[in-house]
């Protein structure tokens, strides 16, 4: 019930913010509604039990990318910006095409039986939370298998602490380990002969190099140059 209410609030905020981004002609107001939309998407991520992704969305998108866009708005502002208006025919055409695309997507989404398809998916049926289930079972086994009273007390104490703090959505450890190359959601409950599921170590390294390249490239592209007058050559 609470989840439904929260979902509807944040879904309306994010979709309304997105429509407001499209509908506004003033680019500063578009930036504001983009902040609203991206923040609501972060709240939707928290509702989907993806705490780390939600926090990363808030930090990187709202706290980084939108600030970058606002800087861009500031640096490229001119008298013409406020008066850039699309003609009404263009507006109607754009809105019509957008509505058609939305109908296609909604029709595709509604026409698929997701439950039946997910039953046919290969490999594992361990979601990000069920590794916590497995750990809970391991702790329970340790409680029932322990011989001395001190071992029993220690095991049940750790189990109760784990159960008390366990909530779904704590994906930080599993995500971090998967970027290291280990997959705790797949490799914990395997028989001896199976191959290990691959982690995300290589994509992580590639993205790190990518970020370095982008940093250098953007700094080079946006370096201070002599201001060109219209018509003369550039030194891009």
């Amino acid at each position: 019930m609470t989840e439904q209410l929260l979902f509807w609030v944040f879904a309306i905020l994010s979709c309304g913010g997105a429509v407001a981004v499209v509908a506004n002609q003033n680019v500063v107001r578009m930036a504001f509604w983009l902040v609203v939309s991206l923040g609501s998407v972060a709240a939707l991520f928290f509702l989907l039990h993806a705490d780390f992704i939600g926090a990363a969305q808030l930090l990187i998108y709202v706290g980084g990318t939108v600030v970058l866009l606002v800087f861009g708005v500031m640096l490229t502002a001119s008298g013409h910006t406020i008066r850039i208006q699309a003609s009404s025919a263009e507006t109607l055409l754009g809105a019509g095409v957008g509505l058609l695309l939305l109908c296609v997507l909604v029709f595709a989404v509604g026409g698929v039986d997701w439950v039946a398809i997910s039953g046919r998916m290969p490999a594992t049926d361990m979601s990000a939370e069920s590794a916590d289930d497995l750990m809970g079972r391991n702790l329970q086994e340790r409680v029932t298998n322990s011989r001395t009273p001190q071992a029993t007390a220690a095991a049940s104490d750790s189990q109760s602490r784990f159960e008390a703090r366990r909530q779904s959505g704590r994906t930080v450890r599993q995500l971090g380990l998967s970027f290291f190359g280990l997959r705790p959601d797949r490799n914990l409950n395997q028989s001896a002969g199976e191959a290990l599921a691959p982690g995300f170590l290589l994509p992580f390294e590639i993205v790190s190099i990518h970020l370095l390249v982008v940093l250098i490239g953007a700094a080079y592209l946006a370096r201070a140059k002599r201001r060109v007058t219209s018509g003369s050559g550039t030194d891009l």
Partner: protein
Amino acid sequence: MDSVGLEAYLIVAAILFVCGVVCMATKRNGIGVLMGVELVLNGANVNFVAFSRYTPLGLDGQATALFVIVLAAAEAAVALAIALNYYNNYQTIDVDRGNELQG
């Protein structure tokens, strides 16, 4: 199950995606086009995380969403540098003015 279904999240993602595409296609301000790109990528991210929650996709969906966030931030930086160069050359950010191939 009483929780929100998968289709609801997919429809939210579809609306975000369509708004981003229309924004990219119709805005004359270059920064507005970049905002459309961000909306498109967010729609895809919502899709990934929703599938990660409701299907056996699991951790793969969330890791992919994280990579998408990082790459989108990098792309926004470079696109903004290009937009600044465009502004320096044309003295306007109106993308409709960039209709010559040379200089």
